[in-house]
Structure formats: C-alpha cells, structure tokens
C-alpha cells in the first residue's frame, strides 16, 4: 500500500489496469453474444418490373445488376438468403398469383456463383404478394436469437391485400424480438412509398427510394453493412405487470417488452444498500402517432412513494423516445453501515444486509396518442438496468481559488504579522525589564 502511494507511476498503471479490467467483462459479453446476423433480400419480380424507366433499362435488369454487385461485395460472415415474389405465375387468377413466393437462395454463408445464377434466371411475371412474402421471409430466417433483417425491394404496392403488409410487418415484429424490415422502393409512386414507409416504421427499419442502379447498389450495400455489425446484446423478453406486487424482479441487463398507448408497466429491481440503480427506457414509435408525445420512467418504493423520475418529450418524426434515471439510497447506506460495524464481530453482516435490501419499482408510462392504431400489439419498449456501487458525495473543496482567496490570505497574513510584531515587542520589552 505504502509503495503504491509513493510511486506515481505504479498508481497510474493501477488505474489504467483497473479501468482495463473493468472494461474486459463487458468485452467478453459482447463477443459471446455476437452471433452472425441473418439477412434476407426479398425481391419483387412482379409484372410491373418490366417497365423500362430507369435510365432506359428495365427495373428488373437494374435490380439484377445491383444484386450481383452486392453479392460480390458481401462480407464472408454474412448469412444471406434471397426470396422472390411474383416470379412464376403469369396467369390472372388472383388467388394463385397471391401465393407466388419462393426462396431461391437459402439463408446461410453466401455461395456467390449459385446466388448469381439464381438471380440471372428471374423473369418479371405475376402479382405482388408483399404480406405473404414477409411472413415467409421471417420463417426462412428462423428464430435463432440473432438479429434478423429483411430487405424488401419492390417497385409497386401490394396487389394482394388483405392482409395489409404493414399490419403483417407489425405482427411479425411483435412475435419475435429483433426482426427489422428495411424497404427499398424502385421509382416508387406515392401509394407504394407510403406502404413501404409504414412497413419499415413498424419494424424499426428504414425506407429508401432508388431512381438509378447506383443508388440501389449503394443502399443495399449500406443496409448489409449495417446488418453486419450486430448489436452487443440480444435483449431478454419480459412482461411488465400492472402493479408493483406482481412485477417481475429483474437483474442487471437489457430487456424488451411491449407497451400499449397510455399503459403503465411495472418492474422490480433489488437495490442493496450502498448501491446505485441505473435504468433507462426507450419506446419505439412504430406507428402513425399524434404530433406531441412523452415517456416517463419513474422509480418508486414498493409502497408507491416516488424516488426519482426520468422524463423526455418530443414532437414530430422520431424513431425512439428515451428516458433514464439514477437512484441511490445514501441515507439507507449510512444506516446499514452503522449496523454492520456494530455487528461485525458477530459475523452477522450478511443477514443484516439481506434484511436491508430494498426493492425499487420501475414504472414505465407514456403519453402517446394515435388516431388509427392504438391497439395490440403495444409499442416496442427497451429497458436497460444496471446496479453499481453508489458514488460518495464529495466533501467541500480542500483548496481554494480566486482573487478573493488571495486577498483574504494576504489580509490574514498582514494581521498575523502585526500581531506577531506587537507580541514580540511586548515580550522583548518585558524581558529587558526583568
């Protein structure tokens, strides 16, 4: 200990080492959960893709060329599949035409030659059953726990509604965590654009339009690149309760849930004395909503006394709305420490702390409003919880600053000097007399 104090270098090393060690567990977690993401490209090969309106080339030839470029540029680790819709049935029977979707490349490590051959043989033919294709694509990707992304490329709206592909997308997103649909419109008209925007918003994906081959290739590459870096964690699914008593008890980590508009969801976290609770919540805006909205994360005791709240509000376009809070029961810590010191000799510290444990209720609520889609499934909610050591409140500063400090010290010195001088004179005078 003494050596450590004496040596500045050693201390720097220790700080660096402890910071390093502190960071390593998180790193280990990241690597263990990082499964390769699974991506499926869903391509519309319906009759309308014959239109030759992209720089003189047909839409399908542009899409094929873009796919070839993308397949060439894919990273080795990507698990990619390709599904087409409207590729085989050329007749007029809507019932048959709306079942026309096939997977032409299975989801897995990319076999470039096979994928290119499959793409080359495509001919624009039939209907546009987007809803069904999305359902099937979700099945193709399976539910392996890793991130799943669908990239939907189409030039026209769904010709097979119902089901409305937007509703299908919301259902699919609600069924399993981590399904995202990115949409790409090839020279889209207004209806197609609205539908694609709706699909991507419902799943937390993005929408882009492409008016040239270059734009299309760039965008698909962007999407595949983004999919290639998986999130550091797959959130655990949890269902919040209606009150604190029945609320699920959560440990530190990331969770996902669904919350209806104006619903309150309760969760419980155990916070030991001397610990600090950190919580944050994000609610995704996955549907058309009224302009202004807010989200409230509240920490309360089991009895309902509010401890602290985190709140955020917004208006207009947004993907998520987040709030966070910190809370530590410092008073309770001091009490607990005093008790621990008293009973330290009796080796009963563990039981004492266990009794002192406090459960904190986390309440997530929102003030969203939707003119159309307020019902099930609820809006996606992401809850992140951490429990760390509480931070000590600092003492008052031991050092000073500013000209006032200098002035006070100077005056104090002056007065002390004068007093010392008088004292010396008096003492010398007295000493001389005696």
């Amino acid at each position: 200990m003494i050596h450590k104090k004496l040596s500045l270098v050693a201390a720097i090393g220790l700080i660096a080492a402890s910071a390093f060690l502190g960071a390593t567990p998180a790193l280990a977690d990241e690597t263990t959960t990082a499964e390769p993401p699974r991506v499926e490209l869903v391509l519309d090969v319906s009759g309308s893709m014959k239109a030759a309106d992209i720089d003189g080339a047909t839409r399908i030839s542009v899409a094929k060329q873009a796919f070839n470029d993308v397949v060439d540029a894919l990273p080795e680790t990507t698990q990619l599949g390709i599904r087409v819709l409207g590729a085989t049935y050329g007749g007029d029977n809507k019932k048959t035409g709306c079942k026309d979707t096939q997977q032409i490349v299975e989801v897995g490590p990319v076999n470039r030659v096979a994928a290119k051959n499959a793409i080359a043989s495509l001919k624009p033919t039939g209907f546009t059953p987007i809803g069904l294709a999305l359902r099937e694509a979700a099945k193709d990707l399976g539910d392996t726990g890793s991130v799943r992304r669908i990239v939907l490329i189409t030039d026209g709206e769904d010709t097979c509604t119902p089901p409305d592909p937007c509703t299908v997308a919301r259902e699919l997103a609600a069924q399993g965590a981590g399904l995202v649909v990115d949409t790409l419109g090839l020279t889209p008209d207004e209806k197609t654009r609205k539908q694609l925007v709706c699909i991507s918003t419902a799943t937390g994906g993005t929408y882009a339009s492409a008016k040239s081959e270059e734009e299309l290739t760039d965008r698909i590459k962007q999407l595949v690149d983004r999919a290639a870096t998986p999130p550091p964690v797959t959130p655990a699914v949890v269902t919040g309760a209606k009150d604190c008593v029945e609320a699920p008890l959560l440990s530190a980590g990331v969770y996902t849930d669904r919350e209806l508009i104006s619903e309150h969801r309760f969760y419980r976290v155990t916070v030991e004395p001397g610990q600090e609770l950190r919580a944050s919540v994000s609610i995704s805006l996955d549907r058309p909503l009224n302009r202004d909205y807010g989200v409230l994360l509240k920490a309360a005791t089991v009895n309902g006394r509010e401890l602290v709240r985190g709140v955020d509000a917004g208006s207009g376009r947004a993907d998520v709305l987040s709030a966070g809070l910190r809370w530590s029961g410092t008073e309770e810590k001091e009490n607990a420490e005093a008790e621990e010191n008293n009973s330290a000799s009796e080796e009963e510290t563990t039981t004492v702390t266990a009794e002192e444990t406090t459960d904190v209720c986390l309440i997530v609520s929102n003030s969203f409003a939707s003119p159309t889609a307020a019902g099930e499934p609820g809006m996606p909610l992401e809850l992140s919880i951490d429990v760390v050591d509480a931070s000590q409140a600092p003492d008052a500063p031991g050092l000073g600053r500013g000209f006032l400090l200098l002035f006070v010290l100077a005056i104090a010195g002056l007065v002390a000097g004068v007093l010392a001088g008088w004292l010396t004179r008096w003492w010398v005078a007295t000493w001389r007399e005696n």
Partner: protein
Amino acid sequence: MRITQLAGAVGVLAALAVATPAAAAPSPAPGVSNAGTSFLTAVAINADQQVQVGAVTGDYLYWSFGAVAGQRPDLDITVALPPSTDRTGSQSWTVEVFDGLRRRQACVAGEQNPVAAENATSITLGCQLRQVRSWAEPWDGDPLPGTYYVRLSSTELPEEDLGLPVDVTLALALPTGDTGADQGELAAPLVPNNKPGKVLTTPAAAASAAPGTEDDEDGLFSSWSFDWIPDFSSRWVWTVAGGALAAVTGLIGFSWTRRRRVA
C-alpha cells in the same frame, strides 16, 4: 484512487479503445464509414476520427463515444443533401446527444436543429456539450463520464422527400477544460451494461458479494491512503500563491510594528 486526473483519463481512454472492437479495430485506417440504427447498434467513434457515412433522408443515424471528466465534447456535422431537383420543400435536421442512460443532454453551443431551404446543397449542424463533471447527484442530469450517444435525423420534411441519398460527415472533438473544477468521483462511469437481462424469482444475494468485499478493503485502508489529496488543478496554484502572499504580507505586518531606529 485519484492521483491525477490525467492518469485516470489515460486509463479510461485506453480501456475505451480496447472495449470497442466492433468499430473495425483490426484495420489501421481510422476512418468510420458506418452508423448504427439504434442505441444498441450505435457505432463507436473516437475524437478526431474521420466519419463519413452514406445514408438517406429519414434515416436515424447513431454513433457513440466515450468522454471523461473535464472534457467538453464538441460535434460538427455536415450533411450533403440530395439534389434540389428531387426535393419538394425545406427539411429540418437535428442532432441530439444522450448520455449513457439515454438521457437527453443539452447543447450549449452549435446549430442543433437547422432548417435547409429547398435549394440548399448542404446543411451544417453542431453541438457542444457542457463540460463533463466528475460527479453529480443521482437526481441530477449533468453530463458525467461514460458513453455518449449521438443521433442525427431529419425531423420534419415533406413525405415525398423521404429515402433520398445523403452524405454525412461528422467530426468529434474532445477538448479538455480545467480538470480540477469539480470535487467527487463517480463510482462507475455511465456505460450501459449490455448483457441480456435475466428475470429473477428470488432476490440476487450473490450480486452484492463483489462490491461488498471491495468496500471492506477500502474501509480497512482508507486511513492509509492519500485519496484526500486533490488532483492537480488551478486550485493548487491559487492556494500555494495565497500562502506565499500571506507570508509576505505577514513579514510586512511584522515590519510595521518595529520601531525604526539606528542600531
């Protein structure tokens, strides 16, 4: 354990550099050409790193960076807009910064949400945060050491203008202010604990064991440590100068009381 703020800064920065392998650590090229699409997938960036990302209008782009106490994060963003022939109206963009708990952080300088006219070719955004404090009350929203998230998005634009390609350039600077401005230290930086959650049936007793033993150790040696010595800062200069000044004025005061006579 705070000897100098600098040492802490070096340590944390080193740890951050190690803890972000997702940001293409193996390649020596420091440029970043990617952005995340959510808080969890935010792409880590460092100060003075070239960030150039292709995206489309309507995208929500996320980046994350680490900051330590005393730094004043400063973001400078340029968005090259789609050709004005494709656009039908003005669009407003916004850059928002959140801390590790996803709490919104105020920008004290910079154009946070500018509006681009229909014929503008590019738009510039900026956000400077308050100086990161080393400690704050749990009930307080001040910027603290840890992770920060940047979100760039177009907030209001004509629906027809969604999905058009844009090019985003971002620069992050982390100039350091007076590190001694604050007292106190955060026990753990605001870095999100990214591990899958686990629903418990009984209270977790084991979780408290590790911090508990640490506390004991600290308690045993706290009387020996030099923790109470503040980090070097301007306060040291002022205080030492004040002491010297007091000594001088003390001598002056002493000299006033002496009878001036020839010895």
